[in-house]
């Protein structure tokens, strides 16, 4: 345990800072003037009713969307307009609300793609498949096997993921994101559509990732029970605006948040 780990989440070093972000599609404002931060080693939940702008927020962090206003600072470096594949090379990995796996490929190959950003050998070596490229391939394969063990999916190693049940697909997707050894892991509704048992498994994996690897996690989740149990701090969005930010127990008692979830009419 380092000093950082023992500090409460709110006092740790800032990993990612979202400052006054606004995003609109044509005339529709998806996000307006949102600021919050994600600190090293915490589990940060982003919650809110449907259409609140949670996934848009994740897409902004991930570089899929480009906000019209505001800045994002990751590891102290304010970033310019970023192309989506650069987020991954900079240490941000993610999963998707509707699973986005490579359906025709095996579990193993899917997770191997996650290590792509860590593999450096050039195309020529790869084409010859000898020397450094071969050694590299073997080294990364070992790392992937560790992830497979960790997620308890040894039995489906060679199965094309398109054939797997939903819960396992979600797990493989988590594995692919973990394979990149990300410094920030974005999970978009990791437990959507799961039964209670699957949710418990997934929660356990998320906590283990956080404590064993020290990975910082930002997650979107609808199940309030899960959010309250897992997260260190919660940010609440509604209609593209931030209406709450703080530790779970504080957010739970926030009147705006209660209104948003119970559906008080907006003026």
């Amino acid at each position: 345990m380092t000093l950082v780990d023992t500090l409460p989440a709110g006092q740790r070093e800032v990993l990612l800072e979202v400052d006054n972000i606004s995003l609109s599609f044509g005339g529709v404002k998806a996000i307006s003037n949102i600021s919050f931060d994600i600190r090293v080693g915490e589990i940060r939940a982003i919650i809110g009713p449907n259409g609140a702008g949670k996934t848009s927020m994740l897409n902004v962090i991930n570089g899929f969307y480009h906000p019209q206003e505001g800045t994002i600072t990751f590891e102290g470096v304010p970033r310019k307009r970023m192309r989506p594949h650069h987020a991954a090379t900079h240490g941000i990995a993610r999963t998707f609300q509707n699973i986005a796996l490579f359906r025709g490929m095996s579990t193993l190959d899917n997770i191997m793609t996650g290590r792509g950003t860590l593999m450096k050998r050039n195309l020529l070596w790869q084409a010859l498949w000898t020397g450094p490229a071969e050694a590299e391939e073997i080294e990364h394969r070992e790392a992937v096997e560790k992830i497979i063990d960790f997620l308890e999916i040894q039995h489906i190693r060679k199965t094309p993921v398109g054939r797997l049940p939903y819960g396992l697909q979600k797990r493989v997707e988590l594995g692919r994101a973990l394979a990149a050894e990300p410094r920030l892991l974005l999970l978009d509704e990791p437990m959507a559509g799961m039964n209670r048992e699957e949710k418990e498994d997934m929660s356990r994996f998320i906590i283990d990732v956080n404590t064993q690897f020290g990975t910082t996690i930002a997650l979107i989740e609808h199940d309030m029970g899960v959010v309250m149990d897992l997260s260190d701090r919660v940010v609440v969005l509604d209609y593209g605006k931030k209406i709450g930010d703080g530790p779970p127990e504080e957010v739970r008692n926030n009147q705006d948040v209660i209104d948003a979830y119970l559906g008080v009419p907006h003026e």
Partner: protein
Amino acid sequence: MFLTDPFFWEVVISGLLAGVMYSLVALGFVLIFKASGIFNFAQGVLALFAALTLVGFMDGQVPFAHVINEALGTNYHHWYETPGGGDGAPIWFVALSIAATTAVMILLAWLVVKVVLKPLVNQEGIILFMATIGLAFVLEGVGDLMWGANIKVLDIGLPSGPSDWIIDQTGMFVNKLEISAAVVAVILVVSLTLFSQYTKMGRALRAVADDHQAALSVGISLETIWWIVWSVAGIVALVAGIMWGASSGVQFSLSLIALKALPVLMLGGFTSIPGAIIGGLIIGVGEKLFEFYIGPMIGGATENWFAYVLALGFLLFRPQGLFGERIIERI
């Protein structure tokens, strides 16, 4: 019994070898379709352009000579004489020319990605398809301007003529050129398959073929992948161009062979590399057998349409092709 008739086997073998040519063109289609969902109408022209460029390098032609001479009143034709004179060019020179042509195809792929694909990213498939039709016309025009429209002889020193050994052994006439084409095609397909199965870049190619967004999220650059895929398709086109050019001369009708790849794809499925190969072989053998055994009864010249009718049959009964992915939508 016709199975013991050497003539039957001669027809089958010549069909298989013709099928290899179809497969090569179809392979280029499949590669691009898998990685980008684009049906590349320009694949046939790519083969033509590659063959023209190779001939240009081998003859030492000055590109755009006609245009330059018209504009400047000069009289350039050739940079250099082909070494070896009339006895055929030496191997090192052929290898050098092929390497130079490969470089041109890779450069062309880069241009296509930057100029055509990148501005159209996220557009409908039909729009990209139209863009490749445009590309086909542009390439044909540029090829014409660069190297001239006359029919050219491509001789890279591949063995040709009937193989004496096979005649001695079996009494069948089999062209050596077609055997070399088959060997080259097999090598190409095996190495492509190994590359896509066992390397990081191969995995990235398959990943992009499956899901663009997910591929981006693991740090795969779509542009780089498209560049690689179009380069590989360009190299496959070069091989196809060499083989077709060596057997029937490099001429602009070469770009029409692309149309023969369509029934091959309908048979094999647009997304399957083995499908492209098997589809090509089936069409090749099918049309030759039909031509020789049934053709005479219905007036001949069946090779022009047999492939399309076969493809139509497939569309009726198995629209995803023999090896294509069956799409089951969840509703």
